């Protein structure tokens, strides 16, 4: 059952078309990921859905409300965490939550119950009286999330919520989200982290102001039409150079401590790879054909 329906959405800034006819449906309970290169229009799209920016044309329905005609109709049901969240640095953790609670006219009793639950989820309990400016980056993001959830929205819109957040805080952040997803919350998020996209219920690839593909991570990976090889050698940098000369610059890339090769045919390439490396006295630690990940899909779709 759809919670968000977007039809032919357009938005321009001067001559630049940021969104060029976006069509999208998001179902209840999804963790829906919006993926795209820098400048693709992700933030613009999320802002329009959150009701903080107007579109030029198109239709948006959120929870059966026409958001274009009645921009405020669904606001009580939407939580929005922008890239630069406006927490008040001089207020304490508790005061920030109370502030957002009053903005949404939540009763004192309800606020108390929800605040306690959020503090427990975010493990910010011990810091309720600390001023926000003295929190670490990861804690600030968890507080921002708590503030965006205080009015118990049905749809949560997150614009790169974990950018600049360390791996541990990032895990904690997602654990909170999983708890709310299990409770039936719908989440729409943009992220530069491919592992977060990998766990989405569906991923939409936004490029050049349009959705160029939208499917489950599994199906997107199934559509990948090349063979992929994963190679580890005792000198990855030299190997990369050598293999780029043979297979093309864009087809041989670093992947953490490994190299990924995008190939027409793995069997043919396998012997070529071995030969090239052997001739140059590079030892192969491992070479195998692997299934593509979301990053491979992303790079292939955009590059």
């Amino acid at each position: 059952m759809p919670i968000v329906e977007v039809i032919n959405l357009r938005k321009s800034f001067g001559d630049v078309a940021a969104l060029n006819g976006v069509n999208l449906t998001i179902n209840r309970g999804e963790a829906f990921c919006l993926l795209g290169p820098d400048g693709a229009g992700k933030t613009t799209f999320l802002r329009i859905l959150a009701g903080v920016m107007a579109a030029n044309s198109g239709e948006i329905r959120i929870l059966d409300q026409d958001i274009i005609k009645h921009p405020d109709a669904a606001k009580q049901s939407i939580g929005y965490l922008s890239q630069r969240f406006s927490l008040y640095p001089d207020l304490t953790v508790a005061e920030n939550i109370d502030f957002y609670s009053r903005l949404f006219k939540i009763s004192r009793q309800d606020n108390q119950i929800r605040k306690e639950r959020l503090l427990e989820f975010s493990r910010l309990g011990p810091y309720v009286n600390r001023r926000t400016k003295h929190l670490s980056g990861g804690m600030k993001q968890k507080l921002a999330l708590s503030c965006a959830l205080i009015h118990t929205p049905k749809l949560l819109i997150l614009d790169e919520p974990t950018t600049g957040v360390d791996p541990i805080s990032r895990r904690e952040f997602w654990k909170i989200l999983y708890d709310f997803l299990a409770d039936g919350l719908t989440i729409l998020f943009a992220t530069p982290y491919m592992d977060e996209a990998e766990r989405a219920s569906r991923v939409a690839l936004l490029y050049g102001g349009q959705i160029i593909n939208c499917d489950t991570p599994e199906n997107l990976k199934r559509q990948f039409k090349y063979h992929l090889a994963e190679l580890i050698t005792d000198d990855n940098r030299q190997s990369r150079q050598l293999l780029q000369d043979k297979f093309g610059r864009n087809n041989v890339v670093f992947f953490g401590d490994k190299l990924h090769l995008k190939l027409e045919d793995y069997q043919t390439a396998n012997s070529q790879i071995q030969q090239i490396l052997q001739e140059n006295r590079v030892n192969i630690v491992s070479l195998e054909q692997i299934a593509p990940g979301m990053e491979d899909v992303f790079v292939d779709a955009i590059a």
Partner: protein
Amino acid sequence: MPLPEISVEVSNLTRKFGDFIAVDDISFKVKRGEVFGFLGPNGAGKSTTIRMLCGIIPPTGGTGRVGGYSLGEENMKIKSIIGYMSQKFSLYDDLTALENLDFFSGIYPVPRNLRQNRIEEALEISRLGSRQDDITATLPVGLKQRLALVCSLMHRPEVLFLDEPTAGVDPISRREFWELIYRLSESGVTVFVTTHYMDEAEHCDRIALINAGKLITIGSPKQLKSNGQKILEIDCSNWQSAFEILRKSEGVIGECSLFGTKIHIMPKPYAETEIVKLLSSAGCDLISKREVMPSLEDVFVSFLSRGTE
């Protein structure tokens, strides 16, 4: 004068802000041409360390040398041989890309007769070419970041400090950025970089991990991973429900995390039978269960999971 083989060297480096110890008695060396990753949770003291090494704030204890010059006594010399790029770009938003390059070559300062060449080179390696006359504010983040990098290179620094240079940048731009870092390192520039992307940390020659101001461990990615605790990797059907049920028993089986759609567990003793039991109770079919080398993210988490936040 030949360049020193050790580019950065600190001994017992300490920085206090009032009662708060931001950097607590850390010592390490970075060799010339190394790509040195400086990792740690938010608020661990990474930026404070970099600011001290760049001569922006003085240490309250310990000593250090950058490019052979002493911290504190020879800060002006240090400033002339380092480049610095932070998470908040120092670019002038209302200048064009080209004007920014011109401005930075002026303040460092680059000798007049070399400027034109360096600017052209910078445009080439950053592949800004066609957008050199665009106002900086209108450039996409990835391009802005490459522009900021080449601006910090105009005076040909020996040591480059990059403080979360790729935060919020898409995977393709991150790759292109790292291509530049390799080229610099191959030409002998020492690169000192902080990042929260563990795949980028894998590209470093060595990594130092800090937490609460203290140096926790240091070594090549390979060393850190082989010293780390073995990880149990679970591949099963219905991973969402599997993860739900497993993480409710973390106290018994050990810390769980999602790695793509596979589940990584830092197993406590005798956890395996319990894991199998939990999975079958959740109706998940086990596809594979195997011990794997920890990823750098696993290493990071296992070193730091106690005592943070």
